[in-house]
């Protein structure tokens, strides 16, 4: 499985590549942010403070027109004046239209993205890998059927299929208690993490086919190897052969694909949240959708900042994927997955 040769290659590629270091740094940063969100976020990301809405990020100021009613010489008059809104050091990335702290929302958004990305990938792999291995190993009818299912599945764009399924099934979400808050370590933070479970299931169902294709290809090329034949001659049954001999040797390209898939699913999740198909309101895509309404009125940061967060996460994961691919197997094709 993970031999010392593999580890040596990983280290060698890592030392030689600045991009691999950047990728690892970004992924570690985002993972830590997601895990320790209650301690990193300065405010509760869902707390609305309407008197502090639309504050620009640190270093920026905004001039807007504010219309107020005033008593002038005993009469009520509406007065329009230019007001300069300056940043509040308490809100590094500014606040959104409802006065929620953007920095805290970005921090908490990392949780949604990462959890959906990882769980969705695990689900897709746990459907796709067994199906692909069985089909590639046994060939014949099972394989033909799988390939046809894969063809049909590929004919629907991931996003379109996901939107259709969520539209039909509804947007279910599960409240998962936040252990840090339950333990009383960060009492002012949200008590639970809202897991958009339908999104996880749907992205798993939509993307399993990429894993099935890769696993099948590996099983097809491995089934004729000498050690597999030897094992069969010694009386090992098919399932044992698949588990002991095929899977460990097929794991490398599956891991590389898994990395790319986490990035692809993060992009897919953000698209779904943007279109309002998510089930959680604490997500980068959702915030971009909110911020879109403020683009023409000058509050550029509400839509921009969450998008930068998505971009940095996906860049980090893609760099990590490139590193793994170069180190583990230079022969693997790079562009699997769909956004």
């Amino acid at each position, binding site marked *: 499985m993970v031999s010392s040769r593999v580890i040596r290659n990983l280290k060698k590629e890592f030392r030689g590549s600045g991009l691999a270091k950047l990728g690892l740094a970004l992924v570690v940063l985002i993972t830590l942010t997601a895990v320790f969100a209650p301690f990193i976020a300065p405010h509760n990301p869902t707390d609305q403070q309407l008197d502090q809405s639309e504050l620009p990020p640190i270093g920026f100021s905004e001039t807007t027109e504010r219309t107020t009613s005033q008593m002038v010489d005993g009469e009520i008059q509406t007065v329009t004046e230019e007001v300069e809104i300056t940043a509040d050091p308490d809100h590094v990335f500014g606040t959104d239209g409802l006065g929620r702290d953007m920095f805290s929302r970005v921090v908490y958004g990392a949780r949604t993205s990462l959890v959906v990305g990882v769980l969705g990938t695990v689900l897709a792999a746990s459907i796709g890998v067994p199906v692909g291995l069985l089909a590639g190993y046994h060939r014949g009818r099972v394989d033909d059927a799988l390939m046809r299912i894969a063809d049909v599945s590929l*004919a*629907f*764009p991931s996003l379109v299929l996901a939107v259709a399924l969520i539209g*039909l099934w509804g947007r279910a979400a599960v409240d998962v208690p936040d252990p840090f808050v339950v333990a009383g370590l960060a009492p002012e933070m949200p008590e639970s993490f809202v897991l958009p479970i339908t999104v996880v299931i749907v992205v798993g169902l939509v993307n399993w086919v990429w894993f099935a294709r890769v696993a099948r290809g590996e099983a097809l090329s491995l089934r004729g190897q000498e050690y597999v034949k030897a094992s069969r001659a010694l009386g090992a049954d098919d399932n044992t052969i698949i588990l002991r001999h095929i899977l460990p040797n097929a794991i490398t390209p599956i891991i590389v694909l898994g990395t790319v898939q986490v*990035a692809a699913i993060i992009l897919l999740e953000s698209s779904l949240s943007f*279109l309002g198909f998510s089930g959680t309101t604490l997500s980068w895509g959702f915030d971009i959708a909110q911020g*879109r309404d403020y*683009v023409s009125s000058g509050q*550029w940061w509400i839509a921009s900042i969450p998008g930068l967060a998505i*971009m940095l996460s996906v860049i980090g994961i893609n760099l990590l994927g490139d590193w793994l691919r170069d180190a583990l197997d230079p022969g693997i094709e790079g562009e699997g997955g769909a956004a």
Partner: protein
Amino acid sequence: MSFGRFALKRSLQGIGVVWGVVTVVFALRFVTPGSAINAVAPLDASQETRQAIAAELGLDQPLYVQYGQYIFDLLRGDMGQSYIKGQEVTALVFSRLPATVELAVAASVVAIVLAIPLGVISATRRNEPVDYGATLLSLGGISTPNFWLGIMLILIFAVEFNIFNTSGRGVDVGDVALSVVNAEPFVGTLLTWLAYITLPAIALGTYFMALITRLTRSGMLDELSKGYVQAARAKGLPRTLIRYKHALRNTLIPVITVLGLQLGTLIGGAVITEAVFSWPGLGTLVIESINQRDWPALQGSLIVIGTSFVLVNILVDVVYAYLDPEVVND
């Protein structure tokens, strides 16, 4: 196997896949918790009304009858009636399709025109600043959500500089062509068309630009290290000729296959790009249909999207087999 037999076999396979697509779309109706009747019937409808609606929609028939009827209707080009828009779904879908095709083609043109030279330059000047620049650009491109890119383009070019339109389609590409025939101001029509399509085309095309740049770069690096390139160099052929005629041609064949498979991503991307720019295409129809629980319109859109994917991929495979006859024997 001859080329003709390969093309025939691939087409028959395609028909099988389209049949699968239709079956999946038909089945979608039955995984719905809110049945089709709820979408049409008023909330306070009596049991009789609901039964009448079910009978009218054919929902009281056994499943296999409904399925047979569905396939039969499809073969006649009948995809039913939209619940909400009161229009034939076939007419509705095909009225939206041209806008999506236009957007997808424009995005592909933006992508290909920029990506292929970028990929070639990147490969021929490996590890020079230009290569690093192209690598970073393509890394950013495959990592940027296209809807966000669209909003950023609106922010910069429409809100700040007020150059482009951000919503709707203006004129279609046919109007631009017709303006020549009708002696209308061609430049004016062309500019209007560009004002509407430029930003969505860039938003949608950037991911593919990045993807094609990466594929072209790695493919070119591969080809340039091969024996025939060295032979051509030893023969004294001009570098440009070797790069663009020999190496690039061999690079593009696998690139085209990957692009065929990524057509789904292109259509998926179009759905969300259309939502950002209120582009009146199939993507907006999909979202509208879901939000209004208009299942026939959704089913019709899905069938057309799935079928287009299958058709384009058959075309890609057949062209591939024509260019590279070895594929036929695989």
